[in-house]
């Protein structure tokens, strides 16, 4: 301590202050184009109607410079790889709470990892095409971050692929399988929008508003269920994520401050993208409440903590200063927080014969936990359904839904959600466009459809595609083969190859007295 002090003082005098370093290494590396016009160099920043008067108004609170970026990222990777190695070397997978936990991780690598890659691509595009040097550099760092996330996730999860089913072919599945079209279509929607809408969709609505709700439950769930590697890559990624959240918040404040005319455009994007991202998070809700053998926190509690308290209570009063109001349809999301996870998991449970993960009826113990978390809805509305499944299974059966569900034209989730004020009625919205009828699952999705019908009529809906003969054939085995799903990846967990291997590995360990 006493020796370190003078050394530190000497060092500090040599080093430029952070603000100056940032100004020199980020802003001052920009130049004015001389032999092409600005419009030619940056052709995409005018057509969305957003007005920017001064790109230097963009602040990066992290004041990140390229040398600091690589230094800290290298340190994060070093820490992560140490955890991965020790977990693999010590057969860490045997210490999981249960093999059924890995269904959450299958959903993650199939649904989320490819989004990281998509984000990497699009932030690289922003790093080229945004006009200000500060947002360009922030986008460049984020692009590299997203590639790191994609790679570390693949690397981490590949260890499980040696022992368990369902982890192969996730990239192909992301492009083809019905439940994965939910995240894929959301990102396709964002990437086919203009650069400013992309910033509001992914950087603000996804990264700032909802990222905590999407990622932190996965990571705490991993920690609680003995999955050290996933927890480590998750937190390693999340530390970048807080920079991404900052980019999202900075983007919205910058755009709102630049011109009053931007406010209604931004509000429209917030209204659209809150609901889009929230609807996709329904898959996370089902995962949190039903797929973790040792649940951490209910969807409802996480929604209240991370969204209602932090965003509606904290952020939106801040944005009120600019004339921004909380997202349209947010009251529908609040109204269904007691229902969402149950309705989603019922869908997954009914259709897991066509999924690359397995599902199971909640055990009595798990059912008690659900009743404690959802006293107002679970005992009356959802437990009876699971009891019925349990009775059928006790008699040697397993109920799967036969047939294909109708999908929402916007979020692409099967149309199984109920009305915000009536849990006995399916929410079913109908719109007409160019003489054809289109269906959506909620007020939010219908509003989004009717705002840009010419975009959403082009949706690649997995069920329609099967009926049109584009998915390998007309029978379930043919479609599963086209999806890349192998026998045993899918269906019921109990009695599955994963469940059998797990029982065998643990029985032999017990017999040896380990």
């Amino acid at each position: 301590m006493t020796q370190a002090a003078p050394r530190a003082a000497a060092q500090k005098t040599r080093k430029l202050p952070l603000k100056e370093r940032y100004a020199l290494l980020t802003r001052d590396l920009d130049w004015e184009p001389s032999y092409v016009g600005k419009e030619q160099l940056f052709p995409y920043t005018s057509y969305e109607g957003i007005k920017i008067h001064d790109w230097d108004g963009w602040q990066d609170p992290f004041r990140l410079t390229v040398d600091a970026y690589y230094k800290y990222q290298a340190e994060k990777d070093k820490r992560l790889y140490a955890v991965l190695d020790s977990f693999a070397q010590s057969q860490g997978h045997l210490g999981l709470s249960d093999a059924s936990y890995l269904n959450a991780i299958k959903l993650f690598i199939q649904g989320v990892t490819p989004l990281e890659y998509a984000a990497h691509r699009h932030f690289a595009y922003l790093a080229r095409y945004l006009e200000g040097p500060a947002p360009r550099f922030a986008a460049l760092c984020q692009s590299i971050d997203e590639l790191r996330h994609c790679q570390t996730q693949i690397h981490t999860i590949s260890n499980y692929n040696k022992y368990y089913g369902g982890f192969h072919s996730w990239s192909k599945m992301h492009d083809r399988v019905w439940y994965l079209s939910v995240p894929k279509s959301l990102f396709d929607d964002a990437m086919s929008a203009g650069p400013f809408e992309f910033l509001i969709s992914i950087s603000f609505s996804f990264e700032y508003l909802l990222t905590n709700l999407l990622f932190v439950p996965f990571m705490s769930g991993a920690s609680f269920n003995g999955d050290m590697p996933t927890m480590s890559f998750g937190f390693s990624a999340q530390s970048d994520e807080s920079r991404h959240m900052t980019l999202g918040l900075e983007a919205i404040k910058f755009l709102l401050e630049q011109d009053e005319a931007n406010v209604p455009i931004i509000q429209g994007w917030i209204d659209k993208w809150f609901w889009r991202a929230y609807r996709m998070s329904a898959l996370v809700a089902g995962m949190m409440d039903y797929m973790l053998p040792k649940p951490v926190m209910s969807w409802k509690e996480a929604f209240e903590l991370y969204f209602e308290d932090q965003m509606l209570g904290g952020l939106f009063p801040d944005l009120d200063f600019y004339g921004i109001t909380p997202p349209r349809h947010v009251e529908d999301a609040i109204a269904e927080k007691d229902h969402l996870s149950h309705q989603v998991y019922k869908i997954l449970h009914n259709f897991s014969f066509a999924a690359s993960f397995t599902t199971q009826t909640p055990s009595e113990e798990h059912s008690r936990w659900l009743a404690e978390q959802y006293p107002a809805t679970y005992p009356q509305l959802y437990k009876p359904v699971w009891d019925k499944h349990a009775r059928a299974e006790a008699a040697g059966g397993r109920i799967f839904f036969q047939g294909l569900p109708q999908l929402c034209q916007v979020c692409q989730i099967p149309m199984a959600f109920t009305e915000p004020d009536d849990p006995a009625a399916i929410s079913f919205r109908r719109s007409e466009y160019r003489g054809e009828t289109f269906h959506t699952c909620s007020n939010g999705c219908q509003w989004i459809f009717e705002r840009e019908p010419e975009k959403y009529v082009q949706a690649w809906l997995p069920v329609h595609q099967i009926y049109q003969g584009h998915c390998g054939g007309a029978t379930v085995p043919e479609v599963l083969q086209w999806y890349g799903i192998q026998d045993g990846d899918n269906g019921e967990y109990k009695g599955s190859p994963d469940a059998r291997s797990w029982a065998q590995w643990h029985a032999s360990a017990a017999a040896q007295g380990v």
Partner: protein
Amino acid sequence: MTATLRQVGLDIQDAEENRALVDAIKADNPELTIRHLPGLLKLQAAGRLVINRETVEQKLGRDWDTGEFQLAIVSYAGNFSEWDDDQIIVSWEH
């Protein structure tokens, strides 16, 4: 006035290397509440949270760059209203 009392928060990885940092935050933010979740610590305070380099260095017994905070943070609620060589401040702006 009520506007400044909205909660801000920092989520920090629950790890050995972050103990001194969390102690420093506790020392500089007397109103702090800490919630333990698996793998992480959720720090919350009304209106404002501050991290001072000097306090962290005292607790840590070595030099510490405010940039190193990037290795500890998982998430946050609020806005980084200051991040320079000596201080990091999280608050709501309006």
